[in-house]
């Protein structure tokens, strides 16, 4: 029975239950200390975690787009190295790869690959983003860093067709082996698809 976050828990408990404490983000996904999280939401300046991470690891840059999680960008070539450092550095200790997925930025001709790291010791979350060209979607695998990456990457391969270099077992995970195309790409089409565009009808 561990109760490690109980000091955090005491504080809200002291507030009388009838008066609801205004919670701008009832479930902040980055479970860093709450005060810091509110700053992230309101002020345009960079979260402390992003500043720290970028200072420690030279390859990382603050995320260009909007994100509600502290986010950084990295070039595909530096991906494995910087993620390994993020995992091993005791200040960050991102021991979990909470999620990995891709976004089809078809207008830019790019796939954005998103690695959502989670640290069990500091309880903070970091989004690491990297962009690869759509016509040659190859990226080194991070299977060596986290075991779960093997299967999260297989899912991305299956649905987006992102090829992972050095992946031990790169094959489709949901669809059949002989499936043509990658369904979550924006330009994916097959015979069974309803191509009705609801927006146009309006």
């Amino acid at each position, binding site marked *: 029975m*561990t109760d490690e976050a109980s000091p955090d828990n005491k504080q809200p408990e002291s507030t009388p239950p*009838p008066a609801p404490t205004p919670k701008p983000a*009832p479930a*902040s996904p980055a479970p860093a200390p709450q005060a810091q999280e509110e700053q992230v939401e309101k002020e345009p300046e960079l979260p402390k975690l992003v500043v720290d991470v970028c200072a420690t690891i030279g390859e990382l840059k603050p995320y260009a787009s909007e994100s509600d999680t502290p986010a950084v960008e990295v070039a595909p070539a530096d991906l494995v190295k910087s993620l390994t450092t993020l995992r091993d550095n005791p200040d960050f200790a991102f021991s*979990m790869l909470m999620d990995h*997925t891709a976004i089809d930025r078809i207008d830019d001709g790019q796939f954005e690959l*998103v690695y959502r790291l989670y640290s069990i010791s500091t309880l903070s979350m970091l989004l690491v983003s990297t962009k690869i060209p759509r016509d040659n979607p190859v990226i080194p695998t991070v299977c060596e860093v986290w075991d779960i990456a093997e299967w999260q990457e297989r899912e991305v391969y299956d649905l987006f067709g992102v*090829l992972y270099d050095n992946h031990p077992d790169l094959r489709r995970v949901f669809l059949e082996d002989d499936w043509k195309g990658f369904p979550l790409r924006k330009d994916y089409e097959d015979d069974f698809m309803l191509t009705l565009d609801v927006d146009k009808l309006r």
Partner: protein
Amino acid sequence: MAVKVSTLDERIKLTDSADSPLDTQEYFINMGPQHPATHGVLRLMLKLDGETVREVIPVLGYIHRGIEKIGEHSTYRQFVHLTDRCDYLSAMMNNWAVSLMVEKALKVELNDRIEYIRTIMAELERIQSHMLWWGVLGMDLGAFTPFLYGFRDRELITDIFEETIGCRLTMNYIQPGGVMDDIHPNFVDRVKKVIEYAKPKIDEYEELLSGNVIIQERLRNVGVLSADKATSLGVTGPVLRASGVPLDLRRVAPYGVYDKVNFEVAVGSVGDCWDRYWVRIEEIRQSMSMIEQLIDNIPAGKTMLMKPAKKTVLPEGSHYAQLETARGILGIYAVSDGVSDKPVRIHMRSPNYNNVWSADEMTRDSRIGDLVANVSSIDIVVPDIDR
């Protein structure tokens, strides 16, 4: 480029002889997609050496419905309905995750009534999910009676849901901005009655299964998952906590009214099936105590703060919210362009998809019986794996 794409046929190539002291040969055998122990249409390819499992290869996709693709063509409110169909045993918690994400992006402040109702509903659902799991675990280990006991008690909770919501399984009760409808006038009384009834039933569960020598033999030191391996494998929920990692979002990043209730996070030490069993039994008790603390204090207030008919457009950028379902952390990740009321990309970080792969790590070099115990102790719901 060293990228090599393989197929299942290439994956299940056999070696000449097995790595064993006897002159034996390995063989592959299909467990599923229709198999009593895989709880749905999960297919496991087992590489066996006699009775010993050398490798477990999950083959997924038998109920892959492309929910993420459908999500790109539906509004957030429509997407809530799809999440019911994923982990149907934590249906309302899945709804809640989407609602959380939308509310956080739109900075909607909820009143306490909504938060109380949501928390109570989620905990009730967690109890019924764990009760079902308990029964199914018993059945997987060859004891049929727990299955009916678990279902008997779970029915009472689904009856409560039915009274308020009108549905028993796929509820889509929690909506962005509140809950679908106010609770039924009988709700409070019935919940109290059911908790009163179910508390001694948990002791009965323990009497029937926990103390049994065979159960102890079947679960203790079976499928051990160390804390490091568990974190690296990205498992969450009771499976992770059983390995000794006290990661429970209800405690470390409270949402709802979890910061107002007292509860303990059940944590195991060894990471074997027995710990996973124990953690879940303890979680039922904790959930009951949470509901008891909350049920009398539901404040008054409105139950829906966003107009359902209004178009919901999230601000540009990526949004993420996560919460603790009965099986682990469910994250909803949405990317919005700031113009359309539909996401550019919506992704579910489903707990089951990330948990199911640990079956291989747990089962290597143990028996078929252990595999069944391990899969059962992971507590998978297949629609959530395939999505």
